[in-house]
């Protein structure tokens, strides 16, 4: 019983999930950073 394809599939799926999750966190962080900049700029303009 070798099932190399099963081992390959399991590791690709595992790594893929961790990688995709990290990318979603990084993208959300980047979007929030832009929001913070925008809000700070609008507050500074209002002063």
């Amino acid at each position, binding site marked *: 019983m070798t099932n190399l394809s099963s*081992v390959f599939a*399991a590791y690709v799926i595992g790594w893929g999930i*961790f990688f995709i999750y990290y990318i979603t966190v990084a993208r959300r962080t980047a979007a*929030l950073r832009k929001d913070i900049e925008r809000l700070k700029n*609008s507050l500074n303009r209002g002063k």
Partner: protein
Amino acid sequence: MSGCALADLSGGSVLKKRILVAAVVVALMGFAAYAALFIAPTESKMGTVQRIFYLHAPSGMVALLSFFVCFVGNLAYVFKRQPKWDWLGVSAAEVGMAFCTVLILTGPIWAHPVWGIWWTWDARLTLTFVLWLLYTSYLLLRTLVEDPDRRALVSAIYGIFAFLDVPLVYGSIRWWRTQHPQPVIMGGAGSGLEPTMRKVFWFWVLNLVILMIFLIRERYALEAMRGEVQFLEREAEAA
């Protein structure tokens, strides 16, 4: 002007540090994969497919650990009502879900060649699936409540109850007869691993714990920024 430049500089240095940590995590994960595929000996009964074990079992352990961190965050929020505990709770729940998803997907890939079936509703598999559903509901619940304080409290109380499934998942293969194998790690007499397999296994556990800490930190920073956005929005409305 100089303040802005300083902020940019510190942001850049923080970014560099985060990239460096991410690179170290990826390198460790790469070596762990190499150890699982080439250093660990081939198991005599199942053959090569048993190498999924090094990803599958530690993912399960780290998922339970993440849910424990979430539980601590939830409990602390109920008693202290400080946003940081809510941020920790949601961060650990989301990271735990990532590990739990890996666990639930890699299990059937391993089970099919060994058991001849993808899935069976035995105690361990069912309780793990229920765990996944419970924490999916935890994350969905948070999207339904608008008020931040109310959202934090409702999800903290729900999270404390969701955690009740964690000891059941852990104990299921010890208390009941299941299709899922009995524990080879922290099991009873006669359980255990060949020494090289054991080293590779614990190396994987260590790596995934490091990955968990890294992801929780990143997710926590995101939640803290969300808190800052809410604060600035209130300021903008008041101005």
